[in-house]
């Protein structure tokens, strides 16, 4: 059985895509501007935080931990499912949603923020022992 070239309905599409620029986003070299709503990762600014622990209670995966005594606020990005409930419920507006995804990690880490340090907020990275 022999098919002539025009029998294949895909031939037009193939010809056109061969002649045009590819649709590929050349990711590492060329980054597109993210949409305003894109859920990348949870960002935190400690300036106004009064450690009310609402975010920690609302977090469905317990990714956020708040300690009132030590005035620390910590997030475990490996648990976060980006539901953005904490962003909606924060009364002080400390928690925001960044459109840039958080980078891959070599070890599971918890980002801890402390009040003693003034702006820029310290971003110490503490490796936590695996369970």
């Amino acid at each position, binding site marked *: 059985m022999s098919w002539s070239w025009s029998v294949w309905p895909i031939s037009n599409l193939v010809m056109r895509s061969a002649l045009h620029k590819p649709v590929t986003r050349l*990711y590492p070299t060329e980054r597109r501007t993210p949409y305003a709503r894109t859920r990348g990762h949870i960002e935190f600014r400690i300036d106004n935080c009064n450690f009310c622990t609402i975010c920690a209670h609302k977090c469905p995966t317990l990714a956020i931990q708040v300690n009132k005594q030590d005035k620390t606020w910590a997030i475990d990005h490996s648990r976060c499912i980006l539901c953005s409930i904490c962003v909606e419920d924060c009364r002080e507006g400390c928690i925001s949603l960044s459109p840039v995804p958080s980078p891959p990690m070599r070890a599971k880490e918890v980002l801890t923020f402390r009040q003693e340090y003034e702006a820029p907020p310290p971003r110490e990275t503490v490796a936590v022992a695996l369970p």
Partner: protein
Amino acid sequence: MSFLKKSPWVLHYAATSCNGCDIELLACLTPTYDVERFGIINTGNPKHADIFLVTGSVNEESRKVVENLYAQMPDPKVVVAIGACALSGGIFRDAYNVYGGIDQVLPVDVYVPGCAARPESIIDGIVQALDILEQRAKDRKRQRKIVSPVVENP
């Protein structure tokens, strides 16, 4: 791409995943992200693969499969855990049939966070895994050089 020296082949297994990260991983292979331009090919055969991409947490059944696939991969190999479920169990970590993250059963080298992990993050994760892979290959070579005189002695 000068930073990529090897063409790694990847093996993908959806352990106990919700499909979200799996389709994002598949989206990486298709025109818009096209990781094949780096020489990365998705293979179905564990014996051909260098990088093991696991999505989703582990349960009793998938644990056996994941361990089996990991054991079949030739050295050097790298494990990349993709998505919140593979990292810690995510929203399902309290479910009775879920053990938790992939690191409960395998040594994980790169953790890609997100629910679902974005294709951009997955590409970043694979690039990080490549560095580790190259380092391991070098280490192996060095070890062989140290070991080989001992072997030839008797």
